[in-house]
């Protein structure tokens, strides 16, 4: 076997610079901002997530819900058609419902607020799957299968009978790189950064654009914020 290298280290310089998280505060609080105005519903973030994390057939850590009547199908509102998209993955809650119910602490919160899943510890009881109000947890009911005859992606696959979900690409954050969905979003609709830095782009966007959290009333306090779509102007002058 030839000498292998870290895929981050092997990036061409311009690409590597593109993915850099950049300077953050001494005690970063990672958040992801998803701009629903800029989101075009292309699923690139979901596909790269599947690829990056070797997510098996039939499972998606990240997916795009059409706010409408089915995939890319509008709904009718006061006689007008409307549609937008809601990208959905683990919300990395400050007060997660999942970690509270896990009997073996296989799912737990990190200091920086990310919610992790340890497949070595997971016993497959699926309490977390039921507890999560966002329905983003995925269970390996069978032996993981994929469309090509080898493991893909940048992390090891999870075994049968364990739970898995979005890790915010923690393996990339460790190397100072943004999560893969942020990198790959052609809408430039995903922004990753430090909420503890009040001047960070994420902090500013959440403030200025009315960033909101999903199911705020549940008190889960997600680290994923959404920016709502803009109001349409019609043809009026």
């Amino acid at each position, binding site marked *: *076997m030839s000498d292998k290298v870290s895929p981050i280290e092997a990036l061409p310089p311009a*690409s590597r610079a593109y993915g850099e*998280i950049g300077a953050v505060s001494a005690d970063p609080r990672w958040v992801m901002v998803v701009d629903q105005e800029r989101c075009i519903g292309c699923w690139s973030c979901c596909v790269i997530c599947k690829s990056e994390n070797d997510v098996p057939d039939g499972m998606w850590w990240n997916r795009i819900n059409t706010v409408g009547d089915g995939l890319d199908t509008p709904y009718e509102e006061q006689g007008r058609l409307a549609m937008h998209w809601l990208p959905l993955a683990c919300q990395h809650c400050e007060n997660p419902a999942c970690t509270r119910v896990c009997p073996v602490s296989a799912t737990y919160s990190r200091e920086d607020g990310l919610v992790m899943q340890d497949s070595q510890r997971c016993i497959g009881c699926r309490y977390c799957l039921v507890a999560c109000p966002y329905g983003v947890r995925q269970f390996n009911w069978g032996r993981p299968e994929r469309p090509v005859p080898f493991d893909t992606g940048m992390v090891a696959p999870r075994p049968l009978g364990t739970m898995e979900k979005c890790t915010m690409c923690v393996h990339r954050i460790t190397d100072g790189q943004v999560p893969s969905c942020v990198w790959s979003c052609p809408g430039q609709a995903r922004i990753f950064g430090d909420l503890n830095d009040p001047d960070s782009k994420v902090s500013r966007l959440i403030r200025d654009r009315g960033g909101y959290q999903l199911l705020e009333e549940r008190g889960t306090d997600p680290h994923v914020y959404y920016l709502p779509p803009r109001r349409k102007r019609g043809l009026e002058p």
Partner: protein
Amino acid sequence: MTVTRRQFLKGVGAAAGAAAVTGVLGGAAETVLAGRDDPLRSLPVDRVVRTTCSPNCTGSCGQLAFVRDGNIVKVQQAADYPDKSYNPRGCMKGISYHLLVHGPDRIKTPLVRDGDRGSGKFREATWEEELDRIASEFKRIGAAWGWDSIHVFGQVPGSGYIQKGANYRACTALGMTHGTSFDFNGDLPMGMPITFGVQNAEHESKDWANSRFILAVGANPLETRIPDAHFIEDALEKGARLVVVDPTFSSTASKADAWIKIKPGTDAVLGLALCRRVMEAGKADWDFMRTYTDAALLVRADTHKRLRADELAPGQALDPGPATGIGLGGYGKKALPAGTAPEVPGAVAPAADAPPPPRFVVWDTASQKPVIVGTERLGIPAGVDAALEGTFTLTLADGSQVQATPGFALVKAEVDAWTPEKAAEITGIPAEDIVRLADAYAAERPAAIIMGGGSNHWYHGDLNGRALALLASLTGNVGRSGGGFSVYVGQYKVRVDTSPWWNIGDHKAKVVPSVYFVRGRTETMNKNVPYPKNGFKALFCTFANMFIQGMDVNRLHQTLDGCELVVVMDHQMTDTVGYADIVLPATTWYEKTDLTATPLHPFLQIQQPALPPVGQARSELWVWQEIIKRIDPAIFDASFDMTEEQAIQAILEKGGGKGGPTEGITLEQLKAGPVRLKVPDPDVAFVRQIDELLPFPPRSLPAPLAATAAFIPTRRIEFYKEDDRFIELGETVPTYKPPHDDSVHDPAKYPIALLSPHSKWRIHSSYANVAWLNEITGGRAPVLLAPETAAERGIAEGDLVELSNTRGKVRAWAHITKAAAPGTATLFEGWWSRQLGGGKSVNELTSSEVNPIHEIQFVANMWAPSTGWKDCRCEVTRV
């Protein structure tokens, strides 16, 4: 496990500043640098290779291939454009390409038919066997029927100048005919050559962000231009307005300030009615029209031809001398002093015995005299008040008198007929919305018009384009950053001079528009089309799913039946491959070297192999080298004994002179990443014509300038066309004609307009077999029907339905949605037959009718029959 902790630490240090390292790793650093399965570390790879994704989508997105143990384990956007607004550039399809490289449909060995043609039965063969057979069959067919009866078809040269260029070079060397794609695909916006004398010309997508108003007509960039769509959002963030004109509520419509629901095939009516309102509201830019267009040039009432200065009695007209045009109203701000003809890039000095270029005549209302206007530069001589209306009497050289009128008066007479009320009847758009749209569009500058396939893919798509070009010109939006009239369909653009590779010396491939392969020659076919004397006897089809993706595909199969040899080269087991006699396993662009660029962003990029060829796959260049060696080793020695890199070098050198598109660009730079071509920034169509009064057209590579300049003899933006056929068919000025298929399929019997737009999930039929994408879509073809349309036919959601007309039939599953307009059925093109409920593809129904206007001139892919995929009627029934 060979990655050491030190390597990782080094990586982190290089990636981020010291603050970030502490911040990111914190105290955890010590505990996370463990082994292979450390969940906090990326698994190592062998290498990361920068290359370019280039199917037929106009994307040409830089991609990184992450290779581990001989397999591509991830594809991700390179995001390395020096112009950062372009990053990351790439879509969900491009980043799942490794599933095609290594997937179940990959062709890895040569195959030979082992059953009836089309039975899909093959046996494995060797390259030796296949190449020997192709060479000997080509020699036999060439001798019996002529080499031009061997036809090479490939999609699309813009996506790979070298490998696809090898097809052209092989045709040049052997005398085979090459097919077309830009016109065959209906993407050639014929309104462009007719009006501007170019193949097409557009603004780079970055320039959308500079618009104050974006009018998208039959265009759905959110789905079909995914890497570029964010520039529209950038404009909206800065306060621009977006209006989408489309029969169907598309993703782009969902972002729009207003969605204008229009009856299919009536865009020209809307365009004309908008022009009328702009004039009526006093918003027309007459300085622009006089300076740059043919508006003021006189047209003879008797012949309907433009009056030439040399037809007039001597001394009658004022002759201000050559190149005296000036820009009115501040236009032409970078022009040389009046009297100086600008140097026209790409112009070749005319032969000594060539007739002098024509000169035209305008009527000066100040002096009440005719004034001569030449073609060396745009503008109107100083002090001349060129009439745009009125009828004037002039004396011809023979002493007779003739009446003449400014061309624009004829244009205006047509436009004036399109009142909002009359337009409302035909388009289904309320009259007051037409007025409000016109006022909103005219109120903002710059305002961009983006025309898409939904508007262009009609038999009379040229008329849609001409009406919208008129709208953009009337408002002075042409040649202006943030404005313009751009048609984004087709990866057509050859941005560099490829002649050193495609041609051999002065010899060029004979190119036959592929629609003639489908339906044979037409009565009105241009005499310059090199249609093979004995018809088509062999087909070499590469990188194209032609046998289901060509239009009118059942007719195409009749031509195919007459072919004595059908060779298909591909890397996926497509429907087309199933009809081959010989199947050649092709490399993907992750396994070969090529050069590409696209209309949407002016970067030159190479493809370089991330992997050795999978299985026995080979490149086009290798295949032609081997075939030619067997046919005539002398040709190989003279013209084919070169590598891809040498071909790239030759192209770079050709365009590398001062002011050339590749000036200063080296292969080494291209290997490291994308390099912006030497074009203005932002790259705006016609900007030099507008600023410097350079005559139209700019050159359309790789054709010589003279070839396309002949499209517009006035060398101005032409709204009045004088060729006989325009006169005969009543299309001298922008006008409207009903969809052509209404005359083929009686709307009473075939009440449904069948639309087959591009899907966001595929690039035509490429990517239809990507497992991940099919998990999202369900992997089977829906037909969008409006609730009324479905109810009238007793069709429920999910029912299998049949779409049929006299050309063919296809089955798919009903999806009932108000997004679809009543009276339409939308079956996105590109599904493979196995994803349908029956039939080859939607193209069993689509039309291959040729518009004779498109045959007046012939420059392949530039003025040639552009086909009308959306111009198609059918009936829908529940199965």
